[in-house]
């Protein structure tokens, strides 16, 4: 039988009346870059905290490389690297002091595993004597990542590393994750940004403590069942209002300057759509059939639930 990096079966966790995780099952293969995609409150943080043995589940089972999170806490902590959602380094220690602290805590040295963090730490070097608390957001993030990697973990768990991070820095961060993956480290990363899902090998959509779907990004978007149109018009708001009022419309959401629209009735094509718009005195400068995005599919699954 194949050994999974992470295996979760029917995991359930309740906080008072809130069901944070509701019978969640998934596995992550060794060497995989796996994304946990969902909004705040979906259960992402709870799931990761159970995996790194900070909290226990109420029911179900979670294991890391076949070690049970309830029994093998110490062994698990030695082989996982964890970057929490909130900046959790020592603000009064310098960049270098933080890093060597984490290295020593794991009985290693900065030099021993330096090759793993070199490309990231190079960017921090000019600030190595600066207190961690005085770094910019992007630099804090890079230092946290270095500290999570310094003992060369087998599995890296990142809780919303890109939340609140600008679009350019987010791209750079994902580039770093690809590099870490190429060194053979399994990565589980959570994010509320749907566009980041495309950069993962496989993803799980999480919403309200439940899994909506698990698959590769390509297979996930294939779950969107209808032909999807992207419409552009100068009369943006009139366009939305007019289409929302059409009973044939099954799906209608704004995506930047386009409106994404779909019909359960697959006989409706661009021509019929354009004719309907004309009856509302709306002229569309563009009506094209497009492939659904990850976000389209998430919205669809939120509204219609899973089909399995």
């Amino acid at each position, binding site marked *: 039988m194949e050994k999974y990096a992470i295996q979760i079966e029917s995991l359930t966790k309740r906080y008072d*009346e809130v069901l944070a995780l509701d019978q969640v099952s998934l596995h992550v293969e060794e060497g995989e870059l796996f994304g946990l995609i*969902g*909004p*705040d*409150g979906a259960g992402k943080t709870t799931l990761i905290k159970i995996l790194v043995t900070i909290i226990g589940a109420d029911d179900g089972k979670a294991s890391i490389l076949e070690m049970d999170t309830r029994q093998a806490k110490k062994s698990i902590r030695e082989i996982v690297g964890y970057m929490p959602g909130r900046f959790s380094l020592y603000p009064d220690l310098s960049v270098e002091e933080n890093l060597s602290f984490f290295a020593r805590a794991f009985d290693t040295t900065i030099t021993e595993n330096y090759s793993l963090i070199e490309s990231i730490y190079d960017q921090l070097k000019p600030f190595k004597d600066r207190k961690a608390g005085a770094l*910019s*957001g*992007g630099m804090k993030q890079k230092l946290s990542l270095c500290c999570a990697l310094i003992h060369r973990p087998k599995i890296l768990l990142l809780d919303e590393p890109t*939340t*609140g*991070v*600008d*679009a*350019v*820095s*987010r*791209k750079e961060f994902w580039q770093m994750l690809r590099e870490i993956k190429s060194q053979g480290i399994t990565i589980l990363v959570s994010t*509320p*940004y*749907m566009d980041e899902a495309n950069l993962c090998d496989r993803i799980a959509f999480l*919403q309200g403590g439940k899994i909506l779907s698990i698959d590769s990004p390509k297979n996930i978007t294939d779950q969107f069942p209808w032909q999807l149109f992207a419409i552009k018009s100068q009369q943006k*708001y009139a366009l939305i209002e007019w289409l929302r009022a059409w009973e044939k419309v099954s799906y209608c*959401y*704004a*995506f*930047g*300057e386009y409106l994404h629209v779909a019909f359960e009735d697959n006989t409706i094509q661009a021509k019929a759509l354009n004719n309907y718009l004309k009856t509302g005195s709306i002229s569309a400068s563009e009506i094209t059939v497009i492939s659904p995005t990850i*976000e389209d599919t*998430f*919205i669809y699954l*939120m*509204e219609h639930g899973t089909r399995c």
Partner: protein
Amino acid sequence: MEPVVKVENLSKKFGEFIATNAISFEVNKGEIFGFLGANGAGKTTAMRMLSGLLTPSSGQAFVAGFDVATQAELVKKNIGYMSQKFSLYEDLTIQENIEFYGGIYELSRQEIKDRSKGIVDKFQLASVKNKLVKTIPLGWKQKLAFALALIHKPKVVFLDEPTGGVDPITRRQFWDLIYEAANDGVTIFITTHYMDEAEYCDRVSIMVDGLIKALGTPSELKKSFDVDSMDAVFQLLARGTANK
């Protein structure tokens, strides 16, 4: 028509570091103005000056008709503010939060009563208005926070990453609320890291290293940089020298 936000050569220095470097722009009544920039570009500093929380080092800014340097208290009373870390009191009920905010803005009892009814009706909160805020879903909290930022009918509302972390449907419903407020004449000043949301703004500015590097409608900006999305404009511009 007098602009609702008028900024002229506004600067803020922290020691030798120039966080905001002589920026100038105007925002009109009912306009949705997207204030973009990478982390550390100077957005927060500029927003803090415009909301009367930080005194400028030089230059001038008028918000809702008041000078941010000399009339900071009047500025604060005449603007609304909402951030991603919703400033709601988790241990108060929805109704109590509404009354509390009404009180802060010195509304009369009657005004508080009327507006709280308005908010409860509009968001269909009647059945949950006596529930503690910490027990309601995130999407509701966000809408309530927005309603409270508008409770004193400010001329301009500052929204600092208001949609971070919410699900894609709620995010779009939130934009419906923004359009509605703008349509009622409220000026919207918003920051976001979602580049699709930049497309929803009437005009967008992009700050880089303390300067405003681009300013215009989304279509103007896309045209002048010869790209097809605001994300592409942002990727081209946003990385200045400071973070390299």
